[in-house]
């Protein structure tokens, strides 16, 4: 609510414009000099108030710009902000409300994936673990033929009365050399 007395203060800007426009026309000033004077006074007061306003606000702002950071630093230095956040903020709730999709959209997932693949050498792992066609079926077939080999070797050894057993360890085999 504005009282009539305060009107000049509040509406100064507009009224100044009116007065300035009217000053050059001699007819208006001549017909109603008092209202012109009042308008002029109001305009002056408004201008001065505005200047003071601006200066003061600028001054205060400048002062605050200097003081507040220092004050806040001093305050923050004296408190454990992390502990306060940990104590008082429900981080889980914040994370739960975060829109992960948008975050992930901004993360270079492919680059990271490539980096991980490079780091753990995934191609090597795949190559070595599959060994081409070494599936369970192949392993089963290999084991079967391995057992048959031993069975036949045993029979052959008994036929020719060999007691020492066979020397099947290849001294410089690919396996032992590569696996040491």
């Amino acid at each position, binding site marked *: 609510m504005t009282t009539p007395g305060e009107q000049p203060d509040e509406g100064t800007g507009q009224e100044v414009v009116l007065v300035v426009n009217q000053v050059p026309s001699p007819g208006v000033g001549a017909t109603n000099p008092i209202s012109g004077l009042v308008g002029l006074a109001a305009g002056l007061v408004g201008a001065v108030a505005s200047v003071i306003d601006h200066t003061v606000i600028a001054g205060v702002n400048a002062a605050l710009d200097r003081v507040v950071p220092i004050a806040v630093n001093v305050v923050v230095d004296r408190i454990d902000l992390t502990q306060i956040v940990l104590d008082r903020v429900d981080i889980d709730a914040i994370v739960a409300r975060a829109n992960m999709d948008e975050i992930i959209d901004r993360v270079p997932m492919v680059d990271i994936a490539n980096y991980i693949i490079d780091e753990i050498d995934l191609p090597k792992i795949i190559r*070595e*673990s599959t060994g081409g066609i070494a599936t369970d079926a192949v392993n089963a077939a290999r084991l079967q033929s*391995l057992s048959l*080999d031993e069975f036949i070797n045993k029979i052959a050894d008994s036929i020719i009365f060999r007691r020492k057993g066979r020397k*099947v360890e290849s001294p410089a085999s*690919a396996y032992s050399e590569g696996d040491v």
Partner: protein
Amino acid sequence: MTSFEKFRQQLAAGEVRDLAQVTIPEKAKSKQGHRSGIVTRALAVAIDISVTIVVMLTNYGLLWLFLLLIAPIHLFEMPEASWFFFAGFVLLWAYWTAAWALSGRTLGNHLMGLQVVDYKGKRLSWPLSALRSIFSMVFPVGLLWVVFSPTNRSIQDTILRTSVVHNWSVTLNDPFVRE
């Protein structure tokens, strides 16, 4: 959780186990690097020969189809079956030579988990590989010596000082790959 840093350290310290070994059954692990017996080797050879026969039959069929389509022209006649037998022989010889010299494994070897190595455990040289290949083809009975050999060697292996060993996993630690 393993960080990259930790993983790198483990890798440098050799603590990361060879992942290829995981796929080898426990029973077969102790057999790796041992010379193989007759059954496994015969199966590998059988697979190789089967592959060759399939390839030659396919060739025969394709050639027959080709001649059928251009029948009116009569560019040339269908070769005799013995020609295909000879071609298959040459093909198998070339295939074995290349496979043993390059990786030590033919398809049959690979399926049965075998690898052909020389006396040092290294890859066969091309001449040795070609020699072993032709020797195996003209004297296949030599394979049967594996049954009685004290070192699980065929006649060819004994003369050329080669071995056919179990090596079920193809790894980068393989000396063949490292070379």
